[in-house]
C-alpha cells in the first residue's frame, strides 16, 4: 500500500495526522472550558475573551504565524521561558505545528461546543443540583453527556481545520521535509518543482479522502449522540 505514495508524501501525511490529532486533543478540554464560560458565564471581559478566541478566524493566517513566532519563538517571551524551564522548543519543530494548528482550529471548535452548551436546558442542571449533585457532578453527569453532539462536531471541525492549516504553520515552523512539512505544505512544495504535479495530485486525493471520512464519521457519531440526548 505504501508504494503508491513516495516517502516524502507519506511523511507529510503521517505528520499532518499526528499534528492534527494532538492539536485536537490538546485544545478540546480548553475549548469546552472557554465555550462554557462564553455560554453560561457572566463576567467582565467576556466580550474581550470572545474576540480573542475568534481573532485567528479573522486575521490573515500569516499574521497569526508571525505573532506566534514573536511570542513562542526561542527569543520570544513565552518561547524563551518554555525552553529554559521545560526544555521545550516550539519554533521550527512539529510541536510548533501542533500549536499553530490548535490556535487556528480553536474558534471553530469553541463555536460548535458553545452551540451545544446553549442547547442544554439549565433547568436540567438545576434539577440535578436539587437531587444533591455539586457543580462538578452536574457538569460531569448532565452537561457533558448532553453536549456530546456539539463536542463531536467541534472536535471534527477542529481536526479538519488543523489538517488544512497552512499559512500560520509555514510562517511559524517553516516547511522542513520530515520535520515540519505537513500535507498542505507538501502540496505547495510539489507544485513549486517541475514534475511535482503527480505527487501533489496524490496528496490532494489523500486530503479529500481524510476530510470525507472525518465528516462521515462525525455525522454518524453526532447523530447517535443526538438521539441519546433527545431521550430516545
Amino acid at each position, binding site marked *: 500500500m505504501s508504494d503508491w505514495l513516495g516517502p516524502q508524501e507519506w511523511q507529510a501525511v503521517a505528520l499532518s495526522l499526528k499534528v492534527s490529532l494532538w492539536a485536537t486533543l490538546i485544545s478540546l478540554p480548553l475549548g469546552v472550558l472557554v465555550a462554557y464560560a462564553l455560554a453560561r458565564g457572566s463576567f467582565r471581559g467576556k466580550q474581550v475573551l470572545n474576540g480573542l478566541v475568534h481573532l485567528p478566524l479573522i486575521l490573515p493566517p500569516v499574521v497569526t504565524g508571525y505573532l506566534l513566532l514573536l511570542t513562542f519563538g526561542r527569543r520570544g517571551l513565552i518561547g524563551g521561558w518554555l525552553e529554559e524551564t521545560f526544555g521545550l522548543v516550539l519554533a521550527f519543530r512539529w510541536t510548533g505545528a501542533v500549536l499553530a494548528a490548535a490556535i487556528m482550529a480553536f474558534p471553530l471548535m469553541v463555536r460548535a461546543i458553545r452551540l451545544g452548551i446553549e442547547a442544554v436546558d439549565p433547568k436540567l442542571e*438545576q*434539577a*440535578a443540583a*436539587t437531587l*444533591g*449533585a455539586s457543580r462538578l457532578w452536574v457538569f460531569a453527569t448532565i452537561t457533558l453527556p448532553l453536549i456530546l453532539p456539539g463536542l463531536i462536531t467541534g472536535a471534527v471541525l477542529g481536526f479538519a481545520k488543523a489538517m488544512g492549516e497552512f499559512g500560520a504553520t509555514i510562517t511559524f515552523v517553516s516547511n522542513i521535509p520530515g520535520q515540519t512539512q505537513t500535507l498542505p505544505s507538501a502540496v505547495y512544495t510539489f507544485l513549486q518543482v517541475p514534475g511535482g504535479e503527480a505527487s501533489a495530485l496524490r496528496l490532494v486525493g489523500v486530503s479529500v479522502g481524510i476530510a470525507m471520512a472525518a465528516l462521515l464519521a462525525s455525522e454518524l457519531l453526532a447523530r447517535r449522540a443526538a438521539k441519546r440526548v433527545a431521550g430516545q
Partner: protein
Amino acid sequence: MSLSVDITHPFGAFTLRVAFEAPGGITALFGRSGTGKTTVVNAVAGLLRPKAGRITISGEVLFDANKGISLPLYQRRLGYVFQDGRLFPHMSVRQNLTYGGRFAPKQSTGPGLDEVCDLLGLDALLERRPGALSGGEKQRVAIGRALLSRPRMLLMDEPLAALDSARKEEILPFLERLRDHTDVPMLYVSHSVSEVARLATSVVVLEDGKVARFGTAERVLSDPDMVRQIGVREAGAVLHATLARHHEDGLSELSVSGGRLFLPHTGMAIGATTRVRVLAKDVIVARGKPDGLSALNILPAEILALRGGTGPGVIVQMQCGKDRLLARITRRSADALALEPGVRVHAVIKSVSIARTDIGTG
C-alpha cells in the same frame, strides 16, 4: 420534621412577606397565580435568595439573612418535583431514579428503589427512556426520583398543572399513597382546590404575597371567609368518612361523624378511611327533616355562621358531627327559613352530585 419559613422578598408590585410552620403530611401552598407561591418554594429549595428572613428544617438552618447563611441547593436535601418533570433525557428511567441516591448521606433512611417503584407503579418503565414516556408517567418518575434522593422534604410546584384531567386522576392516588405510607413531609404548591381537598393536611393560603389563612385543610376549606379566594363554584368542605359497605345497587355506604353517606361506588376496601369533598353548591338546607325526597343523604347539622356577599347568595357554615359543611343558598331562602347561628337544620346532599374525583383516601 417541620419546616419553618419566615421570609421577606420584593415581588412584582408588592412585597412578599410569608411566615408559616409546616407540620408533617402535605402542606399546600394555595392561592391564585401571581400571589408568590412559587417564590416561596424556590426560596425553600435554594433557587432564590430572599431579601430577608430565615428558613429552617427540623431546627437546621437552610437560610438566615442576618447571619449570612444560605446553604447551597445541593446541600439542602429537599427533593424538588418540577411542573415540567425535568427528567434527564440521556438516562434510562432506572438511571434517573437512582441518580440522587449516590449523593445522599450514608446513614440516611427512606424507601428503596423497589418500594418506590411499587408505590408509584414504575416497574414496567424502568428500562425505558424519558422520551418514550407519557406526561403522567414522566411526572411519576420525577416524584420517584426526588423521593429516592432521600430528601428531608419533598417540594412540589404544581406537579399536575401540565397534565390533562385524566392524567391528573392517574397521579393523585399515588400522591395520596405517598402521604399515607411514607413519612416524608411535602410542600405542595397548587391553585386547584380539588387537589388541595384531596391531598392537603394543612393549607397556607397566600394572597398578594401574604399569608391570608393557615390551618388544617378541613378548617380552611370549611371557612366561609375563604369562599372569596376559592370561588363560589369551587367552595366546599371536606368530610372524613370510613367505608362501611358496598351495596348491590352500585352505592357505597360511608359512615361520617354526623351520620351515613350513600355515594356512587368508590372501589375502595371496606374499612378504608376516606375524605369526601362536598361542594357548597350541592348542599340543600332544610329546617325540618324532609320527607319524600329523592336525595339519599340527610345529615342533621347546626348552623355556625352565615356569610353574605354582594350577590343574591349566602354561604352557610354548619357543624355536622365532628365535621363541618358549607352550603350555598340564596339570601331569600335563608331569610324565609330564618337561618341564624345555633339553628338546627338538615343538610341534604344528592349522592350523584359527588364525583368520584372528590373522594380520596386519608
